[in-house]
């Protein structure tokens, strides 16, 4: 079984390749991606990329991609800590201000940034 990308970014979904599986949360929120990653981590998947990748704030970009491993025997405590802290951070930002309704051009920019960030992780992961 392969590692899995959890994403709501159409550009990441369209660019999917054989090296990883993908769960596409079409039209779902940034926070939903983190919540699904958290559920998987509690079931024994391990986090492979940082949930807050990128300096673009969680109430700016609507897009997020996270990679987790296949299911392991034991729950990974570091993964739980990082995802839980990240979820708290996202909620903090969203409680101040909701993500704006961006124009298509800006949405495409956000898609590209998220795509490039996750791509840099995939390159690191799959070089051997």
């Amino acid at each position, binding site marked *: 079984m392969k590692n899995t990308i959890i994403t709501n970014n159409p550009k990441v979904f369209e660019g999917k390749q054989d090296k990883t599986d993908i769960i596409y949360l079409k039209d779902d929120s940034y926070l939903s991606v983190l919540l699904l990653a958290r559920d998987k981590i509690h079931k024994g998947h391990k986090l492979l990329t*940082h949930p807050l990748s990128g*300096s*673009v704030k969680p109430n700016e970009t609507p897009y997020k991609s996270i990679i987790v491993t296949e299911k392991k025997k034991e729950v990974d405590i570091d993964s739980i800590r990082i995802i839980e*802290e990240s979820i708290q951070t996202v909620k903090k930002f969203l409680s101040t201000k909701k993500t704006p309704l961006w124009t298509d051009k800006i949405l495409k920019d956000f898609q*590209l940034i998220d795509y490039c960030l996750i791509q840099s992780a995939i390159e690191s992961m799959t070089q051997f």
Partner: protein
Amino acid sequence: MRLELGKINISDVQFGSITKLENETLYVNKDEIISLIMQDDHIKHVEVEIAKPGDETRITPVKDVIEPRVKVSGEGGIFPGIVNKVTTVGCGRTHVLKGVSVVTCGKIVGFQEGIIDMSGPGADYTPFSKLNNICLVIDPIDELKQHEYEAAVRMAGLKVATLIGKAGKEVEPNEVEIYETKPLLESIDEYPDLPKVGYVYMLQTQGLLHDTYVYGVDAKKIVPTILYPTEVMDGAILSGNCVSACDKNTTYHHQNNPIIHDLYKKHGKDINFVGIIITNENVYLADKERSSNWTAKLCKYLGLDGVIVSQEGFGNPDTDLIMNCKKIESQGVKTVIVTDEYAGRDGASQSLADADPLANAVVTGGNANEIIVLPPMKKVIGMLDYVDKIAGGFDGSLREDGSIEVELQVITGATNELGFNKLSTIEF
């Protein structure tokens, strides 16, 4: 390595027929700058404008700020591996045009840019309002991809800063400061009774618009390594980081890193400042594990008693910061970490996305969520329509009278995590 840094004070910048320095005035030849930039066929058009302290001018969207410097003696040139040959720099003499910068602007993506106000309340939050800024507003050719546009803007700024820096080569500096770091064993011999202190310098390296380069290498591809501090003053590290204006390190920040300068001030008196360990902030968690293992390993190997660790950016790097802190402390080396905060508009929320009890000595550059109203400016260099769509800007934040209500996030350098600003917090 021993570097003489000659500072040439510049109080005014004007356009002139040749680029030269005369009586603290820098004259720049606009046509020469334009033709240099237009050599890059990715660029369709460039505007060159000057913004001075006190002007009612807003510069936005700012991509990078660069200080013009020139090597007078010693090997290599400024920005090795990018503008000049990849020679090891940091020795000899370098002249600095103090009080002036090259600012690059471009709407690479339709959000998340920076603001420099040259007067008014916003000016207090950015160090670049105190400089005479030579601004390059760069338009790309049609359909240019974002990463190529970013590279073109970055290179344009570096080339222009290098060109302007040359005007200071033959000028007698107002002040010469000497910085010297000896090879480790010699340094320990020289000050055997002083605590050995290093600096762990974290660089933003997550991908498109989030990159930093060291001697021309994309720093996400490095493992942590050691630099002499004077290499940084000669442009060994430069910014390709265009995101999170308040806490990104521009090239100017790298060139003038205040942590390095402050450690030098205490060197030989209170501490023995033995060198820098550079490291990265990648997206892949295994990269973070490797890099933080290596910073801790190098701290121990160098026999350090203490280190300062500085962060760049928001969110993901909080985890690198804490990993570095925990692992270095576990090697018996004391740490002080430098960061900034996203603590909500009232400052009451948790500041970082990661934490650990070992992170018990923290310096903050301020709360990036704090609100500020920036009054309208008579002149805008760049594109104001983007202000509504930048980090910390609200929908409708651009008011009818031209003022904007924003978070400090939008202001270039406002909560800089090297401490190159005025904001901080003191806990009583």
